[in-house]
């Protein structure tokens, strides 16, 4: 049986017999990209859709994400799935602050992205009011395919991120903009 190894995701570099030389950023990115540990912050129906994405039909394990982290300290990717009330907002920010760098955030569904139909006194009108978001997923709730697409977009970001991005002034300024220490 012929084994077809897909090498199109291989980073650019210099290849010879028995060795392969490339940039450190690319190697680190490659490693991080294929072993993201997600932390689900699931508060409502989007959480159910996230569970379907985790399940065997859609199978997040294909992306190196079978290890769902329920501790923010060991997570790389925060998936906020569901309505966040204003009372919950400081807790969400605390969870984000507890995550170690590097960290990424997916805002899953209309409620997390914009408050959704809950344009009311008690609901936070989008989690980007308290934490920075990398990828927004529209839908109410989104299909698992949409979440997988968002995860692939995150993987793209992870694999191409410059290694010194999070030490930089721009990144620090962005965090300051959200009042995150």
């Amino acid at each position, binding site marked *: 049986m012929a084994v077809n190894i897909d090498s199109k995701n291989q980073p650019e570099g210099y290849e010879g017999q028995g060795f392969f030389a490339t940039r450190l950023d690319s190697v680190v990115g490659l490693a991080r990209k294929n072993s993201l540990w997600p932390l689900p912050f699931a508060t409502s129906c989007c959480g159910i859709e996230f569970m379907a994405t985790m399940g065997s039909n859609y199978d997040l394990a294909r992306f190196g994400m079978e290890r769902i982290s329920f501790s923010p300290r060991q997570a790389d990717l925060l998936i906020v799935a569901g309505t966040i009330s204003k009372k919950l907002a400081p807790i969400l920010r605390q969870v984000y602050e507890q995550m170690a760098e590097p960290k990424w955030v997916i805002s899953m569904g209309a409620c997390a992205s914009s408050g959704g139909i809950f*344009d009311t006194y008690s609901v936070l009108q989008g989690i980007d009011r308290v934490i920075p978001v990398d990828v927004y997923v529209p839908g109410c709730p989104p299909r698992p395919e949409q979440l997988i697409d968002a995860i692939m977009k995150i993987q793209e970001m992870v694999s191409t991120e410059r290694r010194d991005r999070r030490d930089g002034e721009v990144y620090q300024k962005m965090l300051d903009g959200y009042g995150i220490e």
Partner: protein
Amino acid sequence: MITNEIKNLIASKLGDALVTVEQHYDFHVYIVKKANLHAALKMLKEDAELDFHFLTTMCGIHSPENEGAEFGLMYQLHNMPNNIRIRIRTFMSKNDLDVPTVTDLWASSNWQERQEYDFYGFNFVGHPMLTRILNMDEMNYHPMRREYALEDAWRDDKEDKSFGR
């Protein structure tokens, strides 16, 4: 099912405290004076014959069109042995939202009263810890009052023309 006999018995025991009795669907609603509210509820709970010993729920009412009686409170009581439920209502002016607490009668009213304080701003005199329970602590108004719009008043990203206004 509540009969006229029971209704008259409750009405006579409430005596001067009673303003009027109404029937809403299966419920008899006894409207009492605010000054007699605590005594009336205590009597309904402790009277051996009536025995409304369980406070099922309570809620606030805001009807800005009723001048002089804008705010109201409803207590739903349950006599479990005979399966009889009644509602007690009282109304008050928006200038006087002091209500006696019933936490000394029913411990369950502690959180209920905090909720009514949170959403309507009733001041339950004698409540052990009258602070917000459901909304965030920084909130500076009582959102279930009709004078406030339901939509988020703090939004700044909505253009009126996109919403047909």
